[in-house]
């Protein structure tokens, strides 16, 4: 019943958005509807997560041959739904204030309509219980988000990014469809519950399973933005209005993780070790490539988008590790704890899904607020905004801390568990695993460190020091609805980290429903989290906080005790004698130079210094630094495909040369050939 009202509320919101277009209420009511349905989603999913049984809603059947259309909320769905609902609720609140910027520029009715449809389709994707229904909802999700990406259609880059996104995602869908249909040929039913039977089909060949797996990985990998299928992501996410970027980065890409978990563990059963290793490899590359690109960017939203690529990489490292361990524990149950370690990896991955949803939506919202008031997306033109937008700055800071895995915020907890699960791989005596897992550890460490560098740079360039443009100087604090929603998310980032033990308990139920192994009793003890092997390691996020809360005042008091109370004088920054202007500061590009110098060349970041000579050989009259990111994947992977297609088309093009004699000859030749062949 609740489910029906969720759907109806969203639809009503969409409808009202169109009807109330260009009225004051049209900027409020659709988002209230979205927030309301998100709230109801939480109410509906929470009991499922706590183990009160699945929620099932039967929809009208489309046609008999395609099976029953039903929506089903089980633990896995419920987890993703709650994560989604929290984000969508905050984004809805945020949108009320944020969208004022678009008033009189773009049609707000369209936004309200698409917003609600998008959220509804997300919800349906997480709950669809039938392959065809899933595909429909999946594509509606893609199409509605496509329209949101091109919401600012007067900007040419929005439109082209949108198209690229739509095409990529559609190609992805083609792979998914193929995979589902292959599974359907095995079970004869489109129902997901019947797909689960594939796990037990011993007669199904390994080649078939692997084929399906590869198709799934290609399909969902596109949506997840795994390298090299990621190219749409850093274009589409920034092109959309910020509230939508938040939804896309925080929720939409997670649908891929959701389905990969569901399909691999739930339907196919992880039978081959190399699946997991492949996922692990791709995920590591994604994490690294994503973060290096993020570091090379100066567009705030593109930085965040690339960071999404990185974080999806981290999430998939967890999934890949879980697959590796699961495959081994399926094959050999004598190795101790393997199933537990698999569960730990998956729990880590799911935890990070939640963390990333929270902090990335927070960051995108903050970015939206900053962009609205500074009228630029280029961080080189920002600076000093933190003093104008105190609260936005503070909330963004929390987001930056989380994403940099600063303990005890949620980003850290996920990474900690992930590292631990990787450390525990030692019980497996497979050379491939023993080489790839340490490599994954190293990749994760490097990605994490660079990510922190990236967010130090971002926060520093945007919020600290002196403003680099007039707009930045006159930035105004965001409206209350925006601040309120950011505050909720920021506090959640802290709380989910501090109270991680409770969250892990819940996440464990989810992973147990997928893997069949519960580790809560082994992992969670009071306020500590430990590894499930009985004492490898442990951590207590709450204790970390307590220690900090004790130490900070202590340090403050002690330092003020010794040598008298702190006296502060305000002076100009030390300037070596020449007054400092905004241009004397380190630029963001300059700040990331050393790292880009070392890593950028592997992903096509090119920089060049040109100087104009003056009379003195030592002091040039003018120096110019130019850095550009050569789109390696586009250039060496996608453009050749595109060119080949156009080239081939051109070749085929002469068919239609205009000569009727030639046209008749085609028919004649076809006729003769067929008659001779099939006489």
């Amino acid at each position, binding site marked *: 019943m609740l489910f029906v009202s969720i759907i109806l509320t969203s639809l009503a919101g969409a409808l009202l958005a169109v009807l109330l277009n260009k009225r004051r209420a049209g900027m409020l009511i659709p988002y209230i509807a979205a927030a309301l349905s998100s709230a109801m989603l939480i109410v509906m999913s929470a009991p499922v997560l706590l183990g009160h049984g699945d929620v099932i809603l039967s929809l009208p059947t489309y046609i008999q041959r395609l099976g029953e259309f039903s929506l089903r909320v089980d633990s896995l769905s419920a987890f993703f739904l709650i994560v989604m609902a929290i984000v969508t609720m905050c984004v809805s609140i945020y949108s009320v204030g944020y969208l004022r910027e678009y008033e009189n520029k773009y049609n707000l009715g369209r936004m309200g309509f698409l917003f609600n449809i998008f959220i509804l389709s997300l919800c349906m994707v997480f709950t669809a219980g039938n392959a065809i229904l899933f595909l429909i909802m999946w594509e509606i999700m893609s199409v509605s988000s496509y329209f949101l990406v091109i919401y600012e259609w007067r900007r040419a880059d929005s439109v082209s990014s949108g198209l690229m996104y739509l095409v990529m995602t559609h190609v992805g869908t083609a792979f998914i469809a193929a995979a589902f249909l292959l599974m359907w040929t095995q079970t004869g039913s489109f129902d997901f519950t019947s797909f689960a039977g594939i796990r037990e089909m011993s007669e199904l060949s390994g080649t078939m399973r692997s084929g399906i797996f590869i198709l799934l990985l290609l399909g969902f990998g596109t949506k997840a933005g795994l390298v090299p299928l990621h190219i749409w992501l850093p274009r589409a996410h920034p092109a959309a209005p910020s509230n939508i970027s938040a939804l896309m980065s925080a929720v939409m890409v997670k649908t891929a993780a959701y389905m990969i978990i569901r399909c691999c563990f739930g339907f196919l059963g992880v039978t081959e070790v190399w699946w997991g290793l492949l996922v692990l490899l791709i995920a590591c590359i994604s994490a690294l490539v994503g973060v290096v690109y993020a570091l090379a960017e100066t567009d705030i939203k593109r930085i965040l988008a690339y960071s999404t690529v990185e974080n999806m990489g981290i999430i998939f490292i967890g999934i890949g590790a879980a697959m590796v361990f699961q495959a081994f524990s399926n094959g050999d149950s004598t190795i101790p704890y393997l199933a537990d370690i698999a569960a730990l990896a998956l729990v880590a991955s799911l935890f990070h899904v939640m963390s990333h949803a929270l902090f990335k939506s927070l960051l995108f919202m903050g970015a939206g607020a900053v962009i609205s008031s500074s009228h630029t997306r280029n961080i080189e033109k920002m600076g000093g905004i933190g003093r104008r937008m105190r609260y936005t700055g503070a909330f963004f800071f929390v987001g930056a801390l989380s994403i940099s895995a600063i303990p005890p915020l949620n980003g850290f907890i996920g990474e900690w568990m992930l590292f631990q699960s990787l450390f525990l791989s030692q019980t497996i005596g497979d050379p491939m695993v023993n080489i790839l897992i*340490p490599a994954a550890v190293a990749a994760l460490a*490097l990605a994490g460190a660079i990510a922190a560098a990236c967010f130090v740079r971002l*926060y*520093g360039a945007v919020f600290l020091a002196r403003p680099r443009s007039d707009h930045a100087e006159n930035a105004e604090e965001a409206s209350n609805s925006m601040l309120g929603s950011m505050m909720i998310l920021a506090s959640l980032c802290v709380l989910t980290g501090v109270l991680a033990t409770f969250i892990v308990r819940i996440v464990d139920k989810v992973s147990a429903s997928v893997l069949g192994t519960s580790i809560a009793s082994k992992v969670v003890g009071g306020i500590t989290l430990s590894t499930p092997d009985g004492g490898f390691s*442990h951590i207590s996020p709450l204790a970390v906080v307590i220690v900090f809360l004790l130490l900070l005042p202590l340090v403050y008091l002690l330092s003020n005790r010794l040598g008298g109370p702190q006296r502060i004088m305000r002076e100009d920054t030390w300037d070596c004698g020449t007054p400092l202007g905004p241009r004397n500061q380190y630029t963001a590009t300059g700040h990331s130079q050393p790292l880009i110098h070392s890593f950028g060349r592997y992903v096509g970041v090119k920089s060049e210094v040109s100087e104009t000579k003056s009379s003195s050989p030592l002091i040039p009259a003018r120096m110019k630094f130019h850095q550009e990111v050569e789109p390696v994947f586009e250039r060496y992977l996608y453009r050749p495909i595109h060119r080949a297609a156009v080239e081939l088309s051109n070749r085929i093009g002469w068919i239609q040369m205009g000569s009727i004699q030639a046209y008749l000859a085609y028919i004649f030749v076809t006729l003769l050939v067929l008659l001779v062949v099939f006489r």
Partner: protein
Amino acid sequence: MIIELIQTFLLLALAPLVTGIIRSLKARMQGRKGPSVLQPYRDLLKLLYKSSIRSRDSSWVLSIAPYVCMAAVIAAALLVPVIYTGTFGLIGDLLLLIYLLAIVRFFTTLAALDAGSTFGGMGSSRELFISSIVEPTMLLSIFTVGLISSTTDLGGISMNMASTGLDLIEPSLLLAAAAFFIAILAENSRVPVDNPATHLELTMVHEAMVLEYSGKDLALMEYASMTKLLVFFTLMANIFFPWGIATSMDPIALAIGLLAYLVKISILTLAIAVVESSMAKMRLFRLPNLFTMAFILSLLAVIAYYILGVA
């Protein structure tokens, strides 16, 4: 509980001394007389009495950074075993310790950008560069230790290794220790990565970041970095070579532990002094070569563990 606190205090108390000894040793090796080994204590005390000057352009980030850094370093100090294997390990493990030190890095580098000075940006940029590329090495060395001792719990590592005996000194441990040593140099701004004594714009890394601090703020930052150095030394001493450490509360064991600790720290101090006196600071973009070597060492450490361990 008491002993754990005592050893943390010990660590905190010894930190400026270690820095003083290094400076003194370096001076001797360079043929100078050098300041007293107690000079760092005096400096800190002096700074504490002075008022702080903060830039007009800076924000709350710069103001809180010294306190946060200090708190994080102390929290890290709480975790390391010094003379006794028991620690406040309830809080977390080695991984947490690394991440606590990451807090220090996060805040110092961010605060360095706060005043909008060119030096701050430069230092921040270089520091992040160095610490980022050394991070995988650090994690892999820890991974190796974790593999060898079957835990990443700090007290647990010391305990397991110290009680198992010397047969644990195997190639992978040595390789990991070597890698970790390079990581220490990098993390603590020592030569050849950085020169703690320089104030030349082009070569500063850590000094460039703390240039905007003065008075109490500077005292805290300096003290935090001194403590951080000793925390790393202690890690090296008691995680990679924990032999000698007290595994029980027995007073004699504790005494031996203290002695062993002092000896090990002295050796490390000497090692640093020797390195710093005999090597020149490397060019910034030469550093990746060094760190790649360290990384390879740590990777070899892991692989050696599997190859030799499985065989």
